[in-house]
């Protein structure tokens, strides 16, 4: 018995005569799959820990009596494994016979038919008749909102429960154990859209998407590999299409996940576009006379490049409210770290043993980041410090320390964090003198972050080896964003934290790297999914139609700093930006001709669109587009003195969309479209604003006027209300302002 931790050594095992390499701790099944060797399973799901309920994956190991469960048993160096034999076949066949006991014969109408693991394995093991029956009881079909559950079809593989617990973290599903009567239960009756992730992994037709149910046979759908348009995670997905209509979204659930918005918010296409040559000519002349082109970051890299090229030619101002603050933030950040890109990615969050989240209501802002924090929390027992002005009860199960700071005090908080996290580090003299001169007591008082909280934070990450710091959307448009960026850059540079600076919109990172952006629009403005004198719109309703992201091919740059391809799922009959660009003197047959022209100096590669891969290999490695290269930049050392921290008294609104209805595009989908938009606040907020639950309120914040219905959320505390903005498509101030603002009620 040794006290010291053992390093992971390589192991070599022989499977069916083939020598296979793996590393200590890897299971036999994992090594087999990585080596292209098939072992049948019913309950195995690569992205979660082994479930071990089906027992199909048993193998024989030389010198070991009995059958070995390959999904859970780790490979021991030198083991000689046999994955098939007469005995193994008999036992697997017997298991399939048991699975078929009383399984309802409703394949003719079952959603899963044609892609059902039970069907496939029944065929594979030649079960032509049901040898056993047993007394059956009635089991009621349950409707859980976006998904529904039929316990009679359920084979109790438990994949859905694992996903709910380990990945999405909604902890909605659990097992009601009762021998033959066991079922999956949703005891708190959650209806959240993240249950779609549990349905996605169901091997049979037990847990299915409510909306898709009985609408199509699986084999009639054409699968279009694409990338999700809704947030900067830009997850890989398939649009499944028939007759120019998307029926559902699927994904490679073995290795990746989607959020509710990605899973169910797919029908945001610009449906009725036509080619109107008159309008096209107007558009061309609008570009020619434009003083400003203003656009939204829900755009491909190629389109962003076209806009930049046109800027070079026509010298207009190029404004992207969503990306400008972010671009400036990255620059200031890089001025300290000396790198153009941040160091971490979603995987580094997942691998972490401690995570700090600062400046984001992360569960709403980026569900995929939240999933990865959940994985770290469950698998690595990660300490998760959540620093924000508003406590979020939705992530109470993963957060180990909530540190509440005053809205507006982020610069002070960043300074306190730098001072705490770098306290025992070798740092530059400039930084040392900056930190030494901080008035900690004052910063602490002003931000309400207590020194004991910081001490507890430091203690909790003591001895943790993989640390990730997640920075979010609240910071990029803070009046002191650049100073905050430098402080965080210093933490990145001098500590062991890797950083993920979450891009605030779908392709905000791509836009920041491709375009030279201007801060303010002026004069005659062409708006591209944005406000302007002449408006190009992917939603329809502008002066001229543009294709939505599910009608387009091109690339996007995601939070992982990966350039990923997306493809056309639905027809689009109108003009595209490339048509206008060609008319304006650029020359490309297709928009994707620009893919190979993306700026290498910003880290892109000259890769041709059609050469970009998009798959996961057997070991789960993502082969999708390519990773950007971070470039060195000149590092500076100066830190500005902390300004007096702004304070917000009274009622405050925080611009924040819920994680399903993320933006203007999700708000046109059937699953999420809402006619009424709710301002959500605590009972205390209701009290100071003198609002009742259900009452209508008109207010302005940062110069934008909102009409909302107020809803009391008993799980909230304090005087800050959540104000969704998904219905406020064309308001520029929204995307370029600090997310917290005073509420000015209009009577």
């Amino acid at each position: 018995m040794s006290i010291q931790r053992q390093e992971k050594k390589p192991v070599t095992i022989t499977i069916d005569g083939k020598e296979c390499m793996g590393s200590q701790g890897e299971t036999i099944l994992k090594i087999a799959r990585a080596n292209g060797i098939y072992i049948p399973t019913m309950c195995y799901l690569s992205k979660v820990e082994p479930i071990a309920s089906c027992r199909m994956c048993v193998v024989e190991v030389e010198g070991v009596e009995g059958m070995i469960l390959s999904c859970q048993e780790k490979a021991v160096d030198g083991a000689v494994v046999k994955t098939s034999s007469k005995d193994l076949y008999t036992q697997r066949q017997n298991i399939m016979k048991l699975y078929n006991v009383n399984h309802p014969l409703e394949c003719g109408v079952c959603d899963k038919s044609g892609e059902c693991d039970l069907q496939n394995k029944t065929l594979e093991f030649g079960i032509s008749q049901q040898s056993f029956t047993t007394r059956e009881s009635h089991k009621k079909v349950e409707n859980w909102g976006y998904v529904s559950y039929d316990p009679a079809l359920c084979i109790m593989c438990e994949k859905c429960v694992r996903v709910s617990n380990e990945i999405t973290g909604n902890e909605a599903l659990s097992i009601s154990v009762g021998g033959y009567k066991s079922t999956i239960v949703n005891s708190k009756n959650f209806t959240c859209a993240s249950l779609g992730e549990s349905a996605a992994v169901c091997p049979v037709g037990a847990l299915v998407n409510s909306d898709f149910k009985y609408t199509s046979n699986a084999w009639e759908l054409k699968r279009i590999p694409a990338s999700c348009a809704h947030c900067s995670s830009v997850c890989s997905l398939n649009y499944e299409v028939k007759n120019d209509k998307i029926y559902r979204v699927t994904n490679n659930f073995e290795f990746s996940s989607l959020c509710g918005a990605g899973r169910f918010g797919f029908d945001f296409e610009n449906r009725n576009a036509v080619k109107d040559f008159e309008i096209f000519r107007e558009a061309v002349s609008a570009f020619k006379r434009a003083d400003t082109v203003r656009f939204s970051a829900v755009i491909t890299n190629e389109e962003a490049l076209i806009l930049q090229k046109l800027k070079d030619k026509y010298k207009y101002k190029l404004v992207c409210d969503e990306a400008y603050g972010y671009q400036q933030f990255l620059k200031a950040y890089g001025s300290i770290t000396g790198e153009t890109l941040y160091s971490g990615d979603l995987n580094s969050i997942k691998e972490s043993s401690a995570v700090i989240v600062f400046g984001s209501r992360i569960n709403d802002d980026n569900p995929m980041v939240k999933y990865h924090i959940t994985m770290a929390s469950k698998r690595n027992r990660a300490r998760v410090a959540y620093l924000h002005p508003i406590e979020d009860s939705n992530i109470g199960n993963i957060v180990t320390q909530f540190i509440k700071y005053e809205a507006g005090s982020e610069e002070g908080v960043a300074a306190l964090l730098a001072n705490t996290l770098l306290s025992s580090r070798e740092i530059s003299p400039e930084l040392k003198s900056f930190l030494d001169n901080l008035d900690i007591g004052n910063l602490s008082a002003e931000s309400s972050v207590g020194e004991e909280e910081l001490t507890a934070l430091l203690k909790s990450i003591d001895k943790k080896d993989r640390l990730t710091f997640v920075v979010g959307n609240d910071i990029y448009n803070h009046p002191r964003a650049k100073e905050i960026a430098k402080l965080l850059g210093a933490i990145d540079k001098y500590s062991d934290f890797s950083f993920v600076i979450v891009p605030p919109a779908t392709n905000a990172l791509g836009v920041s790297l491709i375009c030279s952006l201007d801060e303010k629009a002026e004069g005659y403005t062409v708006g591209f999914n944005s406000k302007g004198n002449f408006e190009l719109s992917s939603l329809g309703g502008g002066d001229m139609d543009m294709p939505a992201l599910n009608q387009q091919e091109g690339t996007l740059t995601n939070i992982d700093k990966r350039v990923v391809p997306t493809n056309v799922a639905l027809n689009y009959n109108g003009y595209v930006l490339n048509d206008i660009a060609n008319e304006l003197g650029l020359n490309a047959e297709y928009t994707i001709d620009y893919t190979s022209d993306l700026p290498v100096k910003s880290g892109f590669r000259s890769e041709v669109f059609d050469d970009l891969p998009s798959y996961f290999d057997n070991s789960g490695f993502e082969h999708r587009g390519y990773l950007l290269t971070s470039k060195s930049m000149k590092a500076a050392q100066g830190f500005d003195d902390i300004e007096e921290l702004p304070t917000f008294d009274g009622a405050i609104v925080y611009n924040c969309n819920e994680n399903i209805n993320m933006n203007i595009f999700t708000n046109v989908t059937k699953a999420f479209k809402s006619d009424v938009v709710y301002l959500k606040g605590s009972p205390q907020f209701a009290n100071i604003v003198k609002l009742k639950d259900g009452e209508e309120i008109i207010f302005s914040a940062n110069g934008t006027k909102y009409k909302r219905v107020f809803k009391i959320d008993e799980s909230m505390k304090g005087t800050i209300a959540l104000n969704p903005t998904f219905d406020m498509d064309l308001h520029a101030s929204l995307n370029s302002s600090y997310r917290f603002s005073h509420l000015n009620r209009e009577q």
Partner: protein
Amino acid sequence: MANVFFSTWQGELIDNRNKKEDELQASAFSLPENYTSDKSSKAFIGWDGVALFDKDVDVVRLAMEYAAQYQIYSEACGRCTPGRWGGRILYDLLDKIARGEGSHDDIAHLKEVSSTMMITSKCEIGKTVPKPILDLMEHFAADFNDLIDNQKASRHYNEEINYIAKVTAPCTDMCPSHVDIPAYIEGVRDMQFSESLGATRQTMPLAHTCGRVCPHPCEDACRRANLDSPISIMELKRLGADYETDHGLPWQHPFEPKEPKNDGKKVAIIGAGPAGLTAAYYLALEGIQVDIFEELPVLGGEVAVGVPQYRMPIEKYNKDIVLVTSMPTVNVITNHRVDAARLKEIDSEYDATLLAFGTRLSKKIGAANEKMDMGGYWGAIAMLDKVNLWHKYSTGSPASNELKDKVVVCVGGGFTSMDVVRCSIREGASRVVMLYRRDEKTIIGNTTYEEYHEAVEEGVEFIFHSAIEEIFDDGKNITKLKINQYELVPDPNGGRAQLVKREDGDFEMECDYLIPAVSQSADLQLLPAEWELALTSWETLLTNGKDYMTSRPGLFAAGDCEYGPMTIVNAVGQAKRAASVISKYIYDGKVSLSDDEIMEDHLKKLKVYNKKEKITGWMPGLPRVVSQKLEVDERKDNNKEVNMGFTGEEAVDEAQRCMRCYYISMVAV
């Protein structure tokens, strides 16, 4: 030994069916031939075979009922294909045969399903349930065939017979608290940490504590040891408790606590140590009013003031304590020393009283010139009180005032002595010596490998096979010790080796502080003499070790004051049982055990763990995961928790090594 009519238990085949009186064989195992003193058993059937005590047993129905009990047990499982469907089919087919509707095909199907269950089930319960059923089908084939051929119901099919079943596991059986270990390990494996904690708290409220400082007797009964090395059972218990604490979750009780009964019934508990807290918790879960009387200003007993902070951080122990004290019917009175007069008052005021005051008197070592009032002579309990009160509660003064730069000699060999020497290192002693009569292997057996290893790393000198002959003083303080050395001389007749004094082995050693930590005894002064309570030969309260009532009705005793100085987990187990008995006693005035408790005692006698059993179906050679410890230099001058516990990955890896050795057994009465 048991008288049986037929038995296949653990591979024995005893068949007295056609034997004459003088040819009858008895079973070599302690099978429960008598269920209780006034009730005999008809049959016992379980994971390793079947035993019939009575000629008239209906074997087909016995097999069917056993399969039925597995179905009922599966109410708490059903999480693998062979177990979920196979178990149901076993029961359906056996019932079909027993009621007279079976066919020979059903027998073939039973064998086929049994084979799949035995080879591929997830838990040992699914793997072992078919075993006795197949035994019966083999040895009583005629009975089965008779029912099938004649399509008739088995002979006692419609009679009322009492079948009592119990699920256990070797580790659970060995654990004095009978913690459902496979369940809490499964919770870790599934990363359902709250469920893990809920499973622990069914019988063990001190999850933080026994996830840290339990000597884990369970690990000596872990079947995984038959394959490679035992599961790190104890440390996996921490996960659930830490999860609840880290995430600030509401208390995870094993079940929804019952509403306070407010019926005027109340129980007094003397002592707020592990036993007292445990009894209070389980009584409170039933809604019963409990008052705990504690002599010290702090709660927790020896674990609070005895076990050092670096091993058992008080913040964590306090979580366990608050779990108990936050129960609505638990009331705590601290700084309240109960003496004989007070105990008489309490005894008359309360419906039942549980004595749980531990053993807090340090025993003498028995050396010449041993005077308890000589300077430098410091009992282990008093010394640890001082250390812990200062570090954990900032009460008193630091022990470094006494121990810094001094030579400390401890005489012991158990956990308490380990605490003494390691604390002495932390208080800055210049030299710390442990004298122990026996050898290294024994001290590891008495404590743990980790404990001994860590003490050595921190600089404690262990002198084995040694004892103090005489203490020297200067009239005021201890100055030096005369020490004898012994050697172990094997008995030529193969008996136990004897310790024999080595003639050349005496030596003297300078000493400033001599800390005896040989054992502790109970402070019996608080027992009213006129009660004439029965005591054990080692001066603790005598009970029958099953219901924990003393010789005085309504007065119970649990923990060290009953057993003698023992482990936390032992105190918890006794107190849990006592609470269960008390919760009935205060209503019916009777001392009774539940069927589950009776079975628990039967199984303990039978022994669940079989060291010689060969394990199949698991890959050998996967090492036990060892958690990270603070390095010596990081820990030896402070009170930081030494054991950092498992990382998430390590915990899941270790949990996946667990073979879930659940067994089901059943008695027909």
